[in-house]
């Protein structure tokens, strides 16, 4: 397992469970990601995709983020690989679609009217992150406990 980049928010490494040649897993450390964390994770995936294109010259790339932003997979794709992300489309009536859209629109409006929380700043070098009341300590194992993917 090869770590290719790490900072306070993410840890990017070659996947141990590789689905294709050129499969990077990005672990997200933040428990409750802010909008800045989201931007960093998606940007990290995007730049990883760019680096993959430059290095391996695939015919495409996929980015998949799931599990409450704890995990992100970046995959180099070729026409001959065995992956497929085709889904069976749900058949929903026009009324049902309108009703769902109204619910989401309303939730978006509510979120938009709220004051957004201040973005979390990343840990800087030498500044210890205090999680769960743990006292500051430079220790790899402690770092592991604090590393919340």
């Amino acid at each position, binding site marked *: *397992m*090869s*770590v*290719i*980049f790490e*900072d306070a928010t993410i840890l990017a*490494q*070659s996947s*141990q*469970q*590789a689905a294709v*040649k050129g*499969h*990077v*897993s990005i672990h997200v450390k933040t428990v409750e990601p802010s*909008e800045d964390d989201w*931007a960093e994770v998606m*940007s*990290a995936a*995007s730049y990883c995709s*760019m*680096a993959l294109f*430059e290095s*391996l010259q695939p015919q*495409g*790339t*996929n*980015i*998949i*983020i799931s*599990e*409450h932003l*704890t995990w992100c997979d970046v995959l180099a*794709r070729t026409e001959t690989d*065995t*992956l497929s*992300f085709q*889904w069976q489309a*749900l058949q929903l009536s026009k009324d049902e*679609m309108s009703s*769902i*859209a109204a*619910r*989401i*629109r309303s*939730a*978006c409006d509510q*979120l938009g009217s709220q004051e957004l929380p201040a973005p979390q700043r*990343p*840990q800087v070098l030498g500044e210890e992150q205090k999680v*769960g*009341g*743990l006292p500051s300590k430079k*220790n*790899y*194992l402690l770092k*592991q*406990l604090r590393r*919340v*993917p």
Partner: protein
Amino acid sequence: MTQEEMLQAQKDSCVFCKIIAGEIPSDKVYEDEHIVALLDINPASKGHVIVLPKEHFPILPLIPFSVMQHMFKKTHHIIGALKDAMIVSDVTVFIANGAAAGQQSPHFLYHLIPREDKDQLHMFTLPKTFNSDENELAVKGFSDRYEQLMKAYLQEVNREVVEVPSQSQVPVSDGAEDVSSQEPLDVLIQKIHDNDDLKMAIIERPGEVKSMIASDKKWAELFGSVDVDELSKNLRAMTAARFKEHHNTEKLVGTKANLDDVSTLFGVNK
């Protein structure tokens, strides 16, 4: 035809540009100056939304940095709204760059797919179909370039680059470390690291662990001022991520921890 003319021709025939212009009806759920989010007409699940920039860009790398950052930040809020509206706890983000990856639209977009426990979207659980060692070699080949891109990004957004120990600097525990010379917190970490029962007790039964701490001096000394609830949450997330890494599944097997066994660690009985 020049590249600009080709792009203009692509824009002129782009369905999504027509949707954004209001020439084709759609179920919009969010819109601002730069982006729009609307229901996918071929949804993978109820509430499946696509997010796209208002201006026509065929691929992600062509989108201006400020628009890209705005779009990514708004994704955080749209996902929050999706979770509230569809009463789901998770949303998968799916991006396809290039036809081989499943990109079907000439207008860059990405999918936000609300997930339910027993949905049939198994395609997002990736199979292990490639040799990991060979993948590692391939990934190492662009690690310098990736680091360069990420450092430039962090500088651009004024996020600090945090140095982390390289793998060669990481101490590897053989499980037989002499704990007597360690600080109290190190001892606790070592105990958690070495003992799965203790780890599972903290994850699954933090209330009982707190009771033990309150009632037993040795437990109290070991845990000190550690917030057990927070530790439990962090350990759960870390264990789930590792479990997925090794077993490629989202389910964490619920091994019931035995607190009696854990108690023997400290020479006390529950």
